[in-house]
């Protein structure tokens, strides 16, 4: 295939390994023989045009999308098919969605404590103490008793990040976390993500925010038409992309 050889920065050991992953939506071949390794502590940013399969790639890692062929392992363990084993594995994989998906019938605090109490068996008091720490950390502590609908989009997304972090995940997946936000709220979410990246969290971030990719990524993966076309460190990728497809994509972005 055309994808560049797998590379893991420095001496990182692999946390997530995708090998020969194939995925179809009916006639549409959305993931074409994708190989990808995410190292522990690595921040991987996935970019590419709409419909390139980058969101699908992100969603296969915690099996919100099943795959047709290939293999995905997390921390050496194969992704279970369904049921309790899959639920246990998902608890270790944080996910942040484009549309936030906060539980509408629960307060901010309840959103953040649901997982720890129901899945990890934490006591309410412990879960609430930890939730408040995380909410303070992402800057929405004063909103803890409110319902999601009373918060701005940027605040909701920061709560969603706190909710995922409350599970102490091994890796955080971000599926276009700022695409549904008003421009003035994008930065408050990106700032939280940048802090998280510098704290050593393993992250896979699907985004159109090139500034974030340059600033926070260890590696940029460029996808088009269901394939990984190119991967490189951000400096190399943004200044000297090797593939025509990536050059094309970047030229369209930079002219605006």
């Amino acid at each position, binding site marked *: 295939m055309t994808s560049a050889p797998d590379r893991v920065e420095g001496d990182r050991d692999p946390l997530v390994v995708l090998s020969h992953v194939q995925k179809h939506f009916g006639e549409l071949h959305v993931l074409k023989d994708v190989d990808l390794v995410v190292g522990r502590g690595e921040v991987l940013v996935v970019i590419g045009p709409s419909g390139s399969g980058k969101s699908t790639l992100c969603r296969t890692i915690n099996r919100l999308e099943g795959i047709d062929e290939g293999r995905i392992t997390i921390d050496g363990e194969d992704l279970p098919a369904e*049921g309790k084993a899959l639920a*246990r594995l*998902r608890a270790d994989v944080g996910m942040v969605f484009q549309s936030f998906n906060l539980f*509408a019938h629960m307060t901010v605090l309840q959103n953040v404590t649901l*997982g720890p109490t129901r*899945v990890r068996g934490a006591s309410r008091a412990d879960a609430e103490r930890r939730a408040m720490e995380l909410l303070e950390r992402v800057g929405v502590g004063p909103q803890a008793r409110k319902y999601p609908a009373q918060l701005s989009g940027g605040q909701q997304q920061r709560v969603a990040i706190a909710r*995922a972090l409350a599970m102490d995940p091994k890796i955080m997946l971000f599926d276009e976390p700022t695409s549904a936000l008003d421009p003035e709220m994008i930065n408050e979410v990106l700032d939280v993500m940048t802090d998280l990246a510098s704290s050593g969290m393993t992250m896979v971030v699907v985004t159109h925010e090139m500034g974030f990719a340059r600033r926070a990524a260890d590696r940029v993966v460029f996808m088009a038409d269901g394939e990984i076309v190119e991967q490189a460190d951000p400096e190399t990728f943004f200044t000297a992309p090797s593939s025509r497809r990536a050059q094309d994509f970047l030229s369209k972005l930079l002219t605006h």
Partner: protein
Amino acid sequence: MDAVLDNLGLFADGLAGTLTLFAWSAVGSTVLGTLLAVMRVAPSSAVRAFATTYVLGVRNTPLTVVFAFVVFGGPILGLAVGGDVELQYRVFAVIALTLYTSCFVCEALRGGIATVPVGQAEAARSLGLTFGQSLRHVVLPQAGRTVVPPLGSVLIAMAKNTSIAAAFGNRELISAMRTGIENRGDAVVAVLVATAIAYLLVTLGLSLVFSLVERKVAIAR
């Protein structure tokens, strides 16, 4: 008017029978209907197919036929309480009403589940909640609100459907009406009006209960 007043005991007895049938069947069809709704959104395609087939089959069978299946098929399957014939017929009626109404409860709940954005369940599963936990803590509480009005309609329809039980050996309002007409053939209209009013008491009472519930879940938001 005196035709009704003379038979007041008869109607009270009938009303008690109708309410008993309703209460047991309401509990039964809510439980079975919820189970069916959960099965219809389950991850296993075999479970989904079973529930879908059941709902499709039973919902599209006339209730009288469902009653006939239970009343005539029940004893063959060993569904016999034994001894008390009246109790036996009441149990059969509750089973038939439950089997039938649970399909409509299932569909009302499924309609409610469909109004909850799919992202809510995805977020719940991403946290590591199991299918059951996602439904219980995230999806069903949000579905509940939209489900109250259609569920009310289903149970009101069932209250009236208990009248079929009269044809299968039950003492309730319709059997009371028949006895009333036999006793006072000269006052048929009065007896019919009294029967209709008795049903109205049941159904309007239910409407009241459901509008209270609706207001309660609306405040809980």
